[in-house]
C-alpha cells in the first residue's frame, strides 16, 4: 500500500484517506455485519472430520486490494499467453509429442508424472482445448512485478468467494467503490456459461438446446457452496454422480420427466474419481462409463482429464520454455526461480543452500511435504537432503519468497498480512479474464500460508479502469 512510510501509492490514496476518517468502531461493526451475512447466506467451506463445526465461514477481510488498470493489462496479456501455450503443450503431449522429441521438455518428466493420463493419448478434444477453466496463483516479487507461483489447471476453486466478497464490499464502501472506478466482475458466470457452450462435443445431440451440467462430488466437498452458487448463477443443473448414467456411450441424467441427454459436463470432481471403470475403481463420486462416452465424442468434460501433467510442479519450471517453443514469444509474466533437481548442477546448488530454499514435493498441494529452509532444523534439512538425492524427480526447490503484504483488518486493528492473487481465466471461443480475482490472505501474523484450511482468508480485489 505504501511507497514509503506514511506515503501511500497513488492508487491507494482514496482508501487511505477513507480509513483515516473512518472510526474504528464503524469498521468493526461493518466486519460483524459482513460475517453475519456470510453465515446467513451459508457462504461456508467444509472442515473435514468435525461433527458440529463442519461448516465454517470463509474469513473475509473488509479492506480491498487495489490493482491499477495498467498493471492488470499486463496480467491479462501474460495469462492469456500462458493458457494458450499450456493448451498447445497438452495437445502436443497427448498427440505427436514434438516438444518431447525436440528435447525442450524431458520425456521422462512427462511420463513419470502421476497426473499423466495415458487414456487421453490420441484423443481429439473439442477445439483442442484441454484447459478451459484455470486459476493461476500470482505473487508479487521484490521488484514489484507479478510472477506465477502455481498454475491450477485441474479443478481450480474460489471464484464464488471473489463474487461474494465483491457483493459485501459494495455494501460496506459504496461511495469509495463508485469514486474509484472499479471494473465489474459480475459477468463471470455468464462468461463461464458461454465458454462451456463453445465446447460442444463432436456428436452433439444436434438441433435441440445443448444440456450443460455441473458435476459436484456432493455436499461433503469443501467447495460445495461454490458449486451450488455457480450452477444457480448459470442456470444449469447441479448434478452428482448418482444423477447421471451412461447407456450406449451416451450420458443421461435422471429427471422426474425421464432420462435427459447431457452434452457438456463442467466437472468439479478430480480425474481419479470421474469414472470408476477407467480410473479409481473405488470411487462413488463418478459415473461408470463416463470416460467411454467422452472418448466416443458424445460428451465434453471441462476441464479435460489429464491436464494435471501441465501443472506438475516440475513441469512448471519449463513453462517459460514451453511458451517460447509454441508461440515464439518471451513470457510476459515470469516464473518464480525454480531449481529442477534431476539436473546435477542445480541439485548440488540446492543441497548446499538448503537453509535458504523452499523444497516442495511435486505431487502434493496444500502445504504438505514441504521444507521451508529458514524455519527448518538441521535434522529436517538432513532428511530432505537424502530424499532429494534418492528421488530428485519428486521434488523442486525455490528460493524463499518475500510475499508482498497488504493492510488487513484483524483483531480490531489494521495490520499488514501476506497476500497472493488468483485471477480466473476462461478459454472457449477466446480467452476471457474477468478483471479481478481472489486475493488470499494469511491472517496469522508472519505466516506465508494462505490456504483456507490453514487460517487463510480472502479480500476483494479492485481492478481500476484507468
Amino acid at each position: 500500500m505504501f511507497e514509503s512510510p506514511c506515503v501511500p501509492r497513488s492508487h491507494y490514496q482514496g482508501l487511505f484517506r477513507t480509513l483515516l476518517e473512518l472510526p474504528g468502531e464503524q469498521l468493526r461493526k461493518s466486519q460483524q455485519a459482513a460475517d453475519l451475512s456470510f453465515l446467513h447466506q451459508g457462504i461456508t467451506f467444509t472442515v473435514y472430520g468435525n461433527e458440529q463445526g463442519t461448516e465454517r465461514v470463509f474469513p473475509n477481510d473488509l479492506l480491498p486490494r487495489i490493482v491499477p488498470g495498467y498493471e492488470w493489462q499486463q496480467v491479462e496479456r501474460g495469462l492469456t499467453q500462458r493458457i494458450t501455450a499450456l493448451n498447445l503443450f497438452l495437445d502436443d503431449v497427448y498427440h505427436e509429442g514434438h516438444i518431447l522429441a525436440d528435447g525442450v521438455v524431458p520425456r521422462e518428466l512427462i511420463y513419470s508424472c502421476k497426473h499423466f493420463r495415458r487414456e487421453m493419448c490420441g484423443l481429439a478434444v473439442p477445439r483442442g482445448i484441454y484447459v478451459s477453466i484455470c486459476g493461476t496463483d500470482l505473487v508479487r516479487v521484490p521488484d514489484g512485478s507479478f510472477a506465477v507461483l502455481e498454475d491450477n489447471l485441474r479443478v481450480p476453486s474460489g471464484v464464488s468467494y471473489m463474487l461474494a466478497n465483491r457483493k459485501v464490499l459494495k455494501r460496506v464502501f459504496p461511495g469509495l467503490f463508485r469514486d474509484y472506478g472499479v471494473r465489474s466482475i459480475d459477468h463471470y458466470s455468464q462468461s463461464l456459461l458461454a465458454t462451456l457452450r463453445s465446447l460442444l462435443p463432436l456428436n452433439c445431440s444436434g438441433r435441440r438446446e445443448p444440456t450443460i451440467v455441473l458435476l459436484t462430488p456432493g455436499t461433503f466437498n469443501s467447495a460445495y457452496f461454490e458449486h451450488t452458487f455457480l450452477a444457480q448463477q448459470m442456470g444449469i443443473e447441479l448434478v452428482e454422480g448418482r444423477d447421471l448414467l451412461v447407456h450406449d456411450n451416451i450420458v443421461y441424467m435422471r429427471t422426474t420427466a425421464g432420462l435427459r441427454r447431457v452434452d457438456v459436463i463442467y466437472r468439479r470432481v478430480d480425474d481419479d474419481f470421474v469414472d470408476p471403470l477407467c480410473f479409481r475403481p473405488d470411487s462413488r463420486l463418478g459415473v461408470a462409463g463416463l470416460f467411454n462416452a467422452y472418448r466416443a465424442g458424445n460428451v465434453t468434460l471441462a476441464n479435460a482429464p489429464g491436464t494435471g501433467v501441465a501443472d506438475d510442479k516440475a513441469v512448471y519450471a519449463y513453462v517459460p520454455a514451453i511458451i517460447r517453443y509454441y508461440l515464439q514469444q518471451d513470457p510476459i509474466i515470469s516464473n518464480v526461480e525454480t531449481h529442477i533437481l534431476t539436473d546435477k548442477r542445480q541439485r548440488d546448488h540446492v543441497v548446499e543452500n538448503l537453509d535458504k530454499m523452499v523444497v516442495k514435493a511435486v505431487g502434493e498441494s496444500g502445504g504438505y511435504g514441504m521444507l521451508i529452509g529458514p524455519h527448518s532444523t538441521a535434522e529436517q534439512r538432513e532428511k530432505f537432503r537424502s530424499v532429494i538425492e534418492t528421488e530428485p524427480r519428486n521434488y523442486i526447490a525455490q528460493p524463499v519468497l518475500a510475499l508482498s503484504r497488504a493492510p488487513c483488518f484483524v483483531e480490531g486493528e489494521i495490520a499488514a498480512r501476506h497476500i497472493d492473487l488468483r485471477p480466473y481465466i476462461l478459454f472457449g471461443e477466446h480467452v476471457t479474464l474477468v478483471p479481478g480475482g481472489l486475493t488470499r490472505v494469511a491472517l496469522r501474523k508472519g505466516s506465508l500460508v494462505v490456504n483456507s484450511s490453514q487460517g487463510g482468508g480472502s479480500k476483494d480485489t479492485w481492478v481500476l479502469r484507468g
Partner: protein
Amino acid sequence: MLSRVADSLYWMSRYLERAEHTARLIDVDLQLHLDYGAASGTAHWLRLLEALQVPVPDDENLDSTRLAYAVTLDRTNPSSIASCISAARENLRQVREQCSSEMWEQLNRLYLQVVGTPKGEDWLLYSQLSFRGVQEGAHLFQGITDSTMSHGEGWHYIQLGRYVERTHNLARLVGIHFSRVMEVLDLSVEGDEYLEWVGLLKSCTAFEAYCKKYTAELRPLRVAEFLLLNSDFPHSVRFSVDQVHTALRTIGERTERKADSPIRLAGRLRANLSFGQIDEIMADGLQNYLESIRNLCAQAHNSIHQIYFDYPVESALVQ
C-alpha cells in the same frame, strides 16, 4: 428436474411441516395445562409423544423435562423439532441452487435459532417462547417460498410434501383425540372436556375458524366434521388431500410421465372426502376411516417415489 432434487424438495417440505406440527402441539399443550394446574405431570407428555409417534426415551427417571427434551431438542430422536429442522435444512442445502436465496436464508436462520437454544436448566422456559418462533419461522418460510420461487414443478413437490405430511399428521391427531371418547355426540361439551376439545382445535390452528362456522359451542361431531371434511380450511384433511391431488396432477402434466397410480389414489381419497357425510363416517367407525386415509396416503407416497424419484432405468429408456 433432477429426481434427486425433487426428492430433496419433497422431504425438506415434509420435515418442516412435521417440525411446525410438533412445535404447535407442544405449545398448545403447555398452555392448556396451565389451566389444569400442577397435577398433570408426565401423563400428558406421554400422550403427546404418542400423537407425535415419538418413541418414549429409554430412561429410568422419566420426568416431564426429560420427555419435553425428547420431542424438542434431542438430536438422537429423529422426530424431534431440532432433528426435523436440521433434516429439512440438510435437504435444502443439497439443492440450494434450486430454491431462491431468500428461502435458503430463512431456513438457515431458523436452523441456527433452534440449534442455538441454550442447554441450561431453564431451557424449557426458553423453548416455550421458541415454539412460537418455530411456527412463525415455518410460516415465514412458506410465505417466502410462495412469493419468491417459481410455481413450477419444484414448487409442486414442496406442496406435495407439505400436504402429504399434514394429511398424515391430522389423521393421526384426530384419531388419538377421538379414541378417548366412547361415543361422539352432537351435544355441547363443558368443563375440562371443553378444554380438551379446544386443545384439539388449537393444535390444528382451527379454533377461530371453527367458531366462525359453528360458534363457540363445541360439539365433538361438529369438530370431527370440521377437521375432516371442511373444504376451505387449510388444516382440514379434505383441504390437504385436495392440495395433494392438485400437485400430483400438475406434476403429471408437466413431466408427461405415466403416473396414473398416485393420481388415482389421491383422486379416490379426494372424492371420498368431498362426498363423505360425517354421520356415515361415524356409523362405519371413525378409526377405520382414519386408518384408510393413512393407508392411502402411504400408498400415494410410495408410488410417487417409484415413478418420479427412483424409477428403474429400463422403464425410462423404453419411452
